[in-house]
């Protein structure tokens, strides 16, 4: 009897595909570094140090990972259903705003924290429910509606923090601070690492269980692979689409309020540097597998934080993050036909 871990061919392919896309992204980024007269090896070493160099940097990377991971776990579920929610950014802002109002309204304590998290998550769900209804009832492409809802949501939050919920004691448009007694506790002394990271990591097995061990997860997958087959098999396709889309909204809202309760402690216009969009790349790179998504969100968080070190050591602008995200997205897509090509040529054997 051998006791070794058995990895299925499909999993092996997914791992190779993810590694291949990362490798191609690093090669393409290296070329850009070379054009800018920067040694790519040195740049990547600085980046790595900036993300993981000491306990403080590591905890900052984990803090960065938290909202990305929560968002992308939700997106993984909707993507598995082939529902492209690109409105996570707006859902995140709405969740953060509503949760913050509740936390301030209740006025502190663990109850305020719990209520804020629940309301925040529901806020995100609510913001996804409109596009979900439009998709299921009217057949309107969710990509368009979720994206448009981002603009409505973010402008609405901008307005709320500029007028009705503006903090009376700051010059900038931002909400009042949440009571410190309702904040997510710091779990590592002398860092900012907060309980939110535990919440995010705990969601990984939860979503894994949901997708792999429940009938809901099974149905989501069948609908994603073939809606016709699902309908033939008696699955209520519309309902699965609706639920998977609002589920991704739920987690996007939770990500937003977690970011407020753990780090920012108030809603600002700069609450998210595009976590909702980063989540799309992460879910794709992790190939909608919760464990893969967790690793991918750590990778993207490391790029984000590492690039700020790169900015002051090698004068590489912060925009490199967005560029690497874009490249990664294209390479994840193109790696599938590339792998098939390599297999046909006999270069790659899986």
């Amino acid at each position: 009897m051998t006791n070794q871990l058995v990895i299925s061919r499909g999993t092996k392919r997914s791992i190779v595909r993810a590694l291949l896309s990362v490798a191609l992204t690093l090669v393409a980024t290296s070329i850009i570094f070379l054009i800018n007269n920067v040694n790519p090896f040195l740049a990547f070493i600085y980046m790595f140090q900036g993300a993981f160099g000491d306990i403080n940097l590591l905890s900052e990377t984990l803090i960065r990972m938290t909202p990305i991971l929560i968002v992308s776990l939700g997106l993984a579920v909707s993507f598995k259903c082939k529902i492209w929610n690109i409105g996570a950014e707006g859902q995140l802002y709405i969740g953060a705003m509503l949760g913050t109002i509740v936390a301030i309204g209740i006025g502190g304590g663990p109850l305020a924290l719990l209520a804020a998290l629940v309301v925040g998550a529901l806020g995100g769900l609510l913001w996804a429910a409109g596009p979900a209804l439009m998709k299921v009832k009217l057949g309107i492409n969710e990509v368009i509606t979720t994206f448009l809802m981002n603009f409505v949501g973010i402008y609405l939050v901008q307005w709320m923090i500029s007028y009705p919920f503006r903090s009376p004691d700051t010059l900038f448009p931002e909400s009042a601070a949440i009571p410190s007694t309702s904040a997510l506790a710091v779990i590592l002394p002398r860092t900012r690492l907060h309980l939110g990271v535990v919440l995010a990591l705990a969601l990984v097995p939860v979503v894994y269980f949901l997708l792999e061990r429940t009938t809901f997860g099974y149905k989501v997958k069948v609908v994603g692979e073939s809606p016709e087959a699902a309908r033939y098999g008696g699955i209520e396709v519309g309902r699965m689409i609706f639920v998977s889309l609002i589920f991704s909204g739920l987690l996007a809202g939770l990500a937003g309020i977690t970011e407020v309760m753990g780090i920012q402690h108030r809603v600002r216009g700069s609450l998210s540097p595009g976590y909702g969009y980063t989540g799309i790349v992460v879910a794709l790179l992790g190939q909608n597998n919760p464990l893969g998504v967790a690793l991918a969100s750590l990778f993207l968080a490391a790029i984000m934080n590492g690039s700020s070190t790169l900015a002051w050591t090698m004068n590489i602008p912060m925009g490199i993050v967005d560029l690497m995200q874009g490249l990664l997205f294209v390479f994840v897509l193109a790696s599938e036909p590339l792998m098939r090509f390599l297999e046909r040529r006999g270069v790659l054997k899986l």
Partner: protein
Amino acid sequence: MIEWAVLIGLAAATLRVAAPLLLASLGETIAERGGLLNLGIQGAMLLGAFSAFIGAYFTGSLWIGLVSAIVGGVLATLLFGVLVVSLDLDHVVSGLAINLLASGLTLYFTRVLFTGGVSPYLGELFGPLPIPILSQIPVLGEVLFSQTGFVYLGLISVPLVYMLLTKTTFGIRLRAIGEDPVTASYLGINVVKMRYAALFAEGMLAGLAGGLLTISMFNTFDTRIVAARGFVAVSIVILGRWNPWGVLAGSLLFGFTEALSLRIGIIFPELSGASTIQLFALLPYLVALVALVAGGRRVRGPASLGKRIGKQ
């Protein structure tokens, strides 16, 4: 009582802000009639806006900016073509990839090229081009015949695209592909070549649509300059039922909403200064959603729209 001059100003502004939407949605109409659902048009517009700015800024010539706008737009749609036409990948995901890549590229190079990552202002821009005699007509002259070249170009493109799609062999073949690419290829139509041609045309129009934002409207570049215009253009194509005339109507509707949200303080002076006025910024997006609910239900586009060949 709203003054007459204010209304004329609103009508003129409607056409002005409708121009990028009109050019982009005409381009998207061509692609979608060939079965290609290109959400990457957002990225094509962004690349068009960026390359127009770079071209105009570094050469000092707006005309070179105009040409680079077209080049930028076409590069983006051709990359979409590589993913979707050549590699037969998912249309939606490929479109999103183009958008993210375009936003990464423009953000990075804006920060590389300009200190502080803020683009400077251009010395000059493509301003209004009043048409002699016609611009003297009361009301109509001011609204219709004192616009920029981009507005005229958009309006002229409507019948041209309509004729291209309905009266030419190219258009008839393209629409056949849009309905059923497999059968079309059995009939001897080169699906790959035709689809690349459609994307080339879309890239030119989307590049111009993005380019006019920098070299005719805002005078500078910002990575958020396109806002949601690409996605609004896709909505307009649905609302306009894949017909250039319908697309014209849709563009005017959204142009009107945007113009209204920009000028609400001028139209209703009693509102200016009120906090609610800020909320009008979200009006165009809300109207787009409402319009989709009202007019986008279960409309049938080209049968093969957004479908991968391998799956048919």
